[in-house]
């Protein structure tokens, strides 16, 4: 076919990094929507049964007036944000005192708790719903293995990247599902509050996340955190040194899409029935030895490649079979140029907290109707795209929550108030355009 003889046009590879980060976010959201629609319980029964940190100030009942609900939700969110802030400051303190081992162990522990306990409970709900025959021993063995492999995947960097990514998405999905069990008003106000907190924590000079990032940069260490890293793009450029030319390194600062990523305290909502009394710990994890993040701008195109490499030179863990020899040339060249850190193809990193809160928003929208789900999904993806573009433009750690959450909430309200009536009217009368 003629196609084979033509050189590859730019359309083939442009935008690949963005799609590689949108795909897992979409998968996580889809799974949460499916879980929510399968397991939809009626509001009155279970939401008040769970004492969690997020409902400590006020538990919503169906009969309160809107204003009461709103004030109660506001109180809840303030408490929640306060707790998260306190914990993040503790985290910064621990990181400052170089207690990294403690943080890593805590991270592994919380990953285990999420996978084993939350995953187990959701599995039990599903078994109940579908009357699936399984005995206790088998279930325990499978669950235990599942959780342990998950902890290893999150800890060890030598694990197959697909497994690590899959487990991170599963962890995000489980936590997000539990968040959707909160009462409605509380959830929405909480989302907005977390978006604002994220904005403040990353951009204000006194914000804990910014302090954390700057500490990590100055020490050239990695922050132990649960971060999803998209598989780096392998350039199949033939012949010329296109691969090298594209990778003009801009700066050595960390460009992680930072957010309340590591700080989402899955433990904050661990209720009594999960059996553990952790108070809102911060879920942390080692992001397999990631260190420096540099942004490689490709000319005008500004292909964002937030790179993260260990300070140990010559060892590039991200080298996989696909990589062209160009990569190695590039690496050594960058070594000569820079000395610190590595050039190799990096990838965009997105904190797990983002996954969780996006999925919570979409899950909540799913509890109303599917139209809101589509609208919110599109809004969130658009917000993510905007954030990525801002990342390419500003080249520093940016909060990923605010734009997407604000757009998501806006579209949810617009759809619920305006669009639904219109579309239902039209389609009932088969008026289509």
């Amino acid at each position, binding site marked *: 076919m003629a196609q084979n003889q033509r050189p590859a*046009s730019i359309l083939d590879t442009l935008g690949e990094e963005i799609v590689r980060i949108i795909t897992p976010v979409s998968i996580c959201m889809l799974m949460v929507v499916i879980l929510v629609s399968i397991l939809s319980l009626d509001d009155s029964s279970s939401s008040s049964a769970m004492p969690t940190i997020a409902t400590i100030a006020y538990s919503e009942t169906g009969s309160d007036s809107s204003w009461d609900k709103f004030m109660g939700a506001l109180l809840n969110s303030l408490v929640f944000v306060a707790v998260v802030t306190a914990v993040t400051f503790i985290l910064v303190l621990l990181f400052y005192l170089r207690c990294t081992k403690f943080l890593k162990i805590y991270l592994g522990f919380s990953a285990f708790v999420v996978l084993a306990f939350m995953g187990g409970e959701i599995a039990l709900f599903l078994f109940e719903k579908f009357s699936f025959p399984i005995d206790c021993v088998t279930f325990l063995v499978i669950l235990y293995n599942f959780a342990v492999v998950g902890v290893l995947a999150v800890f060890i960097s030598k694990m197959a990247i697909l497994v690590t990514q899959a487990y991170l998405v599963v962890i995000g999905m489980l936590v997000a599902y539990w968040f959707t069990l909160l009462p409605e008003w509380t959830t929405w106000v909480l989302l907005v509050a977390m978006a604002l907190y994220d904005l403040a924590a990353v951009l204000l000079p006194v914000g804990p996340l910014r302090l954390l990032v700057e500490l990590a940069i100055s020490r050239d260490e990695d922050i132990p955190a649960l971060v999803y890293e998209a598989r780096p793009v392998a350039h199949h450029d033939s012949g010329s040194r296109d691969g090298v030319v594209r990778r003009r390194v801009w700066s050595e600062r960390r460009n992680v899409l930072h957010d309340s990523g590591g700080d989402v305290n899955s433990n904050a909502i661990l209720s009594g029935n999960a059996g553990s009394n952790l108070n809102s710990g911060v879920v942390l994890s080692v992001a397999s030895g990631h260190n420096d993040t540099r942004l490689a701008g490709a000319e005008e195109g500004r292909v964002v490649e937030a790179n993260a490499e260990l300070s140990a030179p010559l060892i590039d863990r991200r080298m996989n079979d696909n990589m062209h020899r160009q990569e190695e040339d590039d690496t050594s060249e960058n070594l000569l140029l820079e000395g610190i850190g590595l050039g190799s193809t990096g990838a965009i990193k997105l904190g797990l907290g983002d996954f969780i809160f996006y999925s919570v928003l979409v899950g909540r929208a799913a509890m109303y109707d599917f139209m809101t789900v589509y609208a919110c999904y599109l809004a969130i*993806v658009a917000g993510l*795209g905007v954030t990525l573009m801002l990342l390419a433009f500003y080249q520093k750690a940016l909060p990923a929550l605010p734009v997407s959450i604000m757009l998501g909430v806006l579209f949810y309200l*617009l759809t619920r108030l305006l*669009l639904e009536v219109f579309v239902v009217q039209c389609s009932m*009368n*088969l008026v*289509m355009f």
Partner: protein
Amino acid sequence: MTVAAGIGYALIALGPSLSLFVAVISKKPFLILTVLSSTLLWLISLIVLSGIWRAFLPLKSTTWWPFALLIISSVGFQEGLRVLFWKVYKRLEDTLDAFADRVGKPRLFLTDKMQIALAGGLGHGVAHAVFFCLSLLTPAFGPATFYVDRCPQMPFFLISAIIALAFVTIHTFSMVIAFNGYAEGNTTDQYFVPVVHLVAGMVVKSASA
């Protein structure tokens, strides 16, 4: 009627676009982004329209002219949006060509341009199918179904799915035709698209009135 029937209706409306997506669009990430952005744009246009028309709803279903007005205004708005889309696309094309020049790759081929137009159209079509057909399908997953007055043998969901399929096709390919028409200055093509859109909308309405 059942989960199977519900999935069936969804696939009737979206099956061809799904295969188009998997075969053509999923290979090139840029096209995926184009689909997503054009879907978003269509959604925004729909929200604006519903904002404008909200005050007049619910329309009485006995008289036909409010619906005609609705259709004409909506189609006009969307066609206007298509022209806007074209202008944005022109600028995008220039940026892409400049980028290709710097990176040393060939400029956009004709097939590339048509693929971008196809992706844009598919985005519109999928948005239409999702909002007009899929969002109503939730009752279809249950145990019963709902028949139309004028044709008591056909369930409402089936009719809505088939019409959605037709509109997906219209949206998808009219974008390609329109972009081609704008690029070559071919006025027949340029007017063909809005006319087809309008006629389709009116015919569907009058057939079901």
